[in-house]
């Protein structure tokens, strides 16, 4: 049972990757990429978790209580906001691709064809 968080992280990664590979719409592809990003958040927080520990905020608890790891929370919270903006950048690339090629289907984008 303690394998479940890692299994969910791995599953999200593979499912997102499957969505990217089989996508027929560039915007659908970008959203599947956010699923892959979510798998990294789950993995990071699962690694930092400690049984019977509480959140690393000492505002109302004594400093001697066990807390979960604050470093992974740091990495994940900056990551969540930043990767939303990166997703916006990819969405605007998709909009530009539609303007250039008239289609959102990745199989029909023509520029890379030899």
């Amino acid at each position: 049972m303690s394998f479940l968080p890692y299994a969910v992280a791995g599953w999200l990664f593979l499912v997102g990757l499957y969505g990217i590979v089989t996508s027929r719409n560039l915007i659908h592809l970008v959203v599947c990429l956010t699923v892959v990003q979510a798998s990294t958040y789950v993995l990071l927080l699962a690694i930092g978790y400690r049984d019977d520990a509480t959140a690393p905020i000492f505002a109302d608890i004594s400093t001697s209580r066990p807390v979960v790891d604050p470093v992974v929370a740091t990495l994940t919270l900056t990551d969540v906001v930043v990767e939303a903006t990166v997703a916006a950048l990819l969405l605007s690339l998709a909009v530009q691709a539609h303007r250039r090629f008239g289609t959102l289907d990745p199989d029909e984008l023509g520029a890379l064809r030899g």
Partner: protein
Amino acid sequence: MSAVQAVALVVVALGGTAVVVTRDPARQALVTSVFGLSLAILFLAFQAPDVALSQIVVGAIALPAMIIYALRKVQRREEVEGGER
């Protein structure tokens, strides 16, 4: 591992699968919103309230909004070009 964490993990896995399986981007925006909320609950169950705060706003509000606005931009262009032909 508590029951809340186990249930939250299963819901997140199902939500991620649902996001990928939904092919229409407009519907996918709503499914992403639900997936984002379930992720926020999972982060809260993992004792990380800071991350849950960011995830609630970004995953349930900002990201679906950006998807819908990008779709609108694409459809607006299709209307304009369709009208010109």
